[in-house]
């Protein structure tokens, strides 16, 4: 089973919820896999104080041209929708940051002058902390394409145990890649106009992807009730409400986990897991 924690808006508390859920789940299950797919700025490892056990380089395939075979026909350049390979005065030039690794240029090249080579885009770090396996994608600085790295992180989803995905913020390609195969989504938001606006976008995406989902509202009491009203109107369950508690903010800024330090919140996270388990079992 895979639960993805997503949000249309950044800074709403995805990592807080993902890491706390992972810890609660690790008390219940034999093993939990936490996949940090927020690859531009992964920070689950700050809260899950694990031991790094391994790292793995992630590459994508980009074209390389053998000029001795190239007939300067321009077929590669005409084919590429991303302008990642462009014929300049006949000679193909590769812009590796633009390449989406579709391999099309190698297929349309009649003289077979194009082959693919590895191009590094980032790393996957593997941490272990008790029963939690934390698998973290870390995009290289300057590398613009996160979906292939997110896909590689998801390759380590465990078939038999609970997986929790900490998704990147927003509603664009990286988010879709992170949540597309999840069994259940928790959309995190905050009770503000910005929170509501971006929640609505995230709800639209979740519905398009035909996902079961619910909403978690963070910092309840800090804003207004428009998110609550929206969820009621749209018949979306609110699975978790975290109050606007200064102690939580202080713990977060010190890289500490809520439920280890404020045990009164533990029950809420346990309930979340239970509710999701029921929903998935009943196929609702």
């Amino acid at each position, binding site marked *: 089973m895979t639960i993805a924690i997503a949000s249309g808006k950044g800074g709403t508390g995805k990592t807080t919820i993902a890491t706390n859920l992972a810890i609660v789940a690790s008390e219940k299950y034999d093993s939990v896999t936490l996949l940090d797919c927020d690859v531009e700025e992964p920070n689950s490892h700050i809260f899950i104080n694990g031991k790094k056990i391994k790292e793995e380089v992630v590459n994508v395939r980009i074209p390389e041209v053998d000029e001795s075979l190239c007939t300067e026909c321009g077929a590669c350049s005409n084919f590429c929708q991303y*302008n*990642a390979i462009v014929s300049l005065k006949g000679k193909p030039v590769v*812009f590796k940051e633009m390449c989406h690794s579709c391999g099309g240029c190698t297929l349309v090249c009649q003289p077979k002058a194009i082959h693919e080579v590895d191009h590094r885009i980032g790393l996957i770090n593997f941490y272990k902390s008790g029963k939690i396996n934390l698998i973290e994608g870390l995009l290289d600085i300057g590398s613009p394409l996160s979906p292939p790295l997110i896909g590689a992180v998801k390759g380590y989803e465990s078939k038999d145990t609970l997986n929790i995905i900490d998704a990147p913020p927003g509603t664009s390609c990286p988010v879709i890649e992170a949540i597309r195969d999840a069994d259940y989504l928790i959309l995190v938001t905050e009770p503000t106009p910005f929170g509501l606006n971006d929640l609505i976008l995230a709800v639209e995406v979740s519905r398009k992807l035909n996902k079961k989902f619910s909403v978690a509202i963070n910092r309840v009491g800090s804003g207004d009730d428009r998110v609550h009203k929206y969820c009621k109107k749209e018949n979306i369950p609110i699975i978790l409400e975290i109050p606007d508690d200064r102690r939580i903010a202080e713990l977060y800024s010190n890289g500490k986990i809520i439920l280890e330090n404020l045990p009164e919140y533990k029950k809420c996270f346990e309930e979340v897991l239970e509710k999701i388990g029921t929903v998935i079992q009943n196929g609702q």
Partner: protein
Amino acid sequence: MKVAFTSQGNSLDSQFDERFGRAMYFIIYDTDTNETKVLENMAGVESAHGAGISAAKKLVDAKVDALVTGNCGPNAFYVLSENNIKIYLSNAKTVKEAIEEFKNKKLEIASSPTKGGHWR
């Protein structure tokens, strides 16, 4: 010498476009004959990514010697400078005004990209 000006329309009175890759038109002005020609940049405007690269390729194919625009990103800058096309920067209102500035040697040459890549 053939100089390309980025433009929002297809005439000399059109608004000068400070963008390069996604400018709708290039007005090509020939300093020897005083003639102008219009080059459409529809493919660049519509491309999902790499508009600057595709626009720069268009100017290389059109054999221009210089470009006058408002901004130029790293990939376009690379293609243009590799092909010896000089990049001049202007913030003129109209294409006509930019041509006057160019003729009066009021424009400075860009020695590096003025923007980061939009693919980031």
